């Protein structure tokens, strides 16, 4: 099962998630990572640079991450404590923009969405229709090199607004804000978990096991591996079953020919 990666910036944002998702500290060099069977959590530190560097390193260290959810606080015009999804993330400094693809789903639909502008220093010029944060653009910069914009999302909890300024934020209030937003965060995580793990059906999993076993038994090059993977997949699609292969003492070239013959023997029939 592929894991979802939550990225926070501050310890106060992390703490409620550790409790709610039963996450344990994990050994990862130079990264503050917590993990469970379903989730990874990276606490990247504040600011765009930390976010980009941490996200990039995280995706190198854990290449099978299914999706990323950035959780944190942000300033805006919405009421304090409101959870808001990002439908556009903009880097204020460079003008770069990303458009997360929000799935057509009741959970996502039930939450408001706004533009999130990532700024390099705290700002108090609140504007309608826009939230300020300090990490989202860094996360999108790094993550979009590995994942699609369907797999990178951002949920922010409003921590300051024109009525309750930035000076009212402290560790205690941030913990309370994230704790209160946990139902929304959990719902989003459930949808992402469902969307990005359902693609692995039983046959493709069985095919992956066959390929792994096969590659352990035969001498092969990187190109052999690529071709054999393709042929085994093609066989599964065309024949509707895992190929039965006698690999004892056989070369990769021999197995390749066997698979090609077996594939050719199955007709393409539309019924």
């Amino acid at each position, binding site marked *: 099962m592929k894991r979802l990666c939550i990225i926070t910036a501050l310890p106060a944002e992390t703490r409620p998630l550790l409790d709610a998702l039963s996450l344990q500290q994990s050994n990862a060099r130079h990264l503050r990572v917590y993990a469970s069977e379903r989730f990874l959590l990276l606490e990247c530190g504040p600011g765009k640079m930390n976010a980009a560097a941490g996200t990039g390193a995280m995706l190198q260290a854990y290449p099978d991450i299914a999706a990323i959810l950035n959780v944190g606080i942000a300033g805006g015009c919405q009421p304090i404590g409101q959870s808001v999804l990002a*439908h*556009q993330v903009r880097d204020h400094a460079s003008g770069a*923009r*990303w*458009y997360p*693809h*929000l*799935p*057509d*789903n009741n959970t*996502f*639909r039930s939450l408001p*969405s706004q*533009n999130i502008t990532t700024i390099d220093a705290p700002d108090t010029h609140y504007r309608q229709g826009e939230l300020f944060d300090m990490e989202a653009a860094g996360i999108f910069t790094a993550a*979009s*090199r590995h*994942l*699609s*914009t*369907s*797999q990178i999302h951002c949920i922010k909890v409003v921590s300051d607004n024109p009525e309750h300024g930035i000076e009212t934020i402290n560790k205690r209030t941030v913990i309370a804000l994230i704790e209160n937003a946990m139902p929304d965060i959990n719902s989003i995580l459930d949808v992402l978990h469902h*969307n990005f793990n359902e693609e692995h059906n039983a046959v493709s999993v069985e095919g992956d096991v066959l390929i792994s076993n096969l590659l352990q038994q035969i001498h092969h090059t990187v190109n052999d591996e690529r071709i054999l993977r393709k042929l085994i*997949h*093609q066989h599964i*699609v*065309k024949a509707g079953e895992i190929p039965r292969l006698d690999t004892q003492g056989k070369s990769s070239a021999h197995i390749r020919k066997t698979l090609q013959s077996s*594939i050719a023997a*199955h*007709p*393409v*029939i*539309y*019924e």
Partner: protein
Amino acid sequence: MDTLYIEDAVANHPRTLTLRSRYPKARIVSIEHYGDVFNAPAQNFKHQKASPALILAKKPGKRVLPTPPGYHIGGENNYYFSHMLNCVYDCRYCFLQGMYQSAHYVVFINSEDFFADMDRTVREHNDDVWFFSGYDCDSLALDPITGFVDECLSFFDSQPQAHLELRTKSTQIRPLLKRAAINNAVVAFSLSPEPIVSAEEHGTPSLSKRLEALKKLQDAGWKIGLRFDPLLYADNFNEIYGAMFDQVFATLNMSDVHSVSLGVFRLPKAFHKKLVRLYPDAKLLNAPIAARDGMMSYPEDVEETMRNFCMQRLQQHIGDHQFFPCT
């Protein structure tokens, strides 16, 4: 539709306001240019296809373009236009999934500019000019939302020198049936055998529904066209294509069909590669497909056998003047 991306340039256009009112609960995201969303890197076509957004934009630059060589149904001057980009259907062989990064639908709001360009193009020629719709989208499928076809037909009704082909798989023919047929428009349906519709043309109306729509149009006096394109390889090709032709001939008055065309499956190499990546389990990929002249296609002898079978069946029911094999 869950999300509407709206270009600032068309935010207050009456068509935008009408479209917005159809989706009162949709997220509205303001954008500067549709390409910022549509051509952005790191998009997942397959995920977007499951819940596409609508992008409302203004089409700048050239809106009417010459068709590729061989793309015609008898006319000398041939152009195409795309009032939309992308299709509501999910056909495995479709080149759009290879051509675009995104599965979102772009609707160009400035129809009036399209008609002005077509008007200008007609004036540049002394004889008839053909305009093809449905190259980058299905001409009718999203019409209940865009309402483009009705405006388009009114334009062509006033331009006897201009001819229109609406290419579709959709049975949304209400805008056509509610008005009198015009002589310079052809409604052309792409047709495939039912087993291929089920396996490869996801979300499309069945062959029977398409034929039913064609019959209604024919009865109402509209010129209809049949597009057997793409022909897909199958070991039971003769059986399934034979059954389809039987159904077509039994339903339609073939002597009244305006035009029939055939085209065998082929895709540019890069598009084929993307198809393999997106849908490795697509049945059509199991056919003998190889690179030839920069395209991925069936071996020449296979293509010829497929084409010959179809031509033989068709020639029993249509005249040479109705047949355009290479479009």
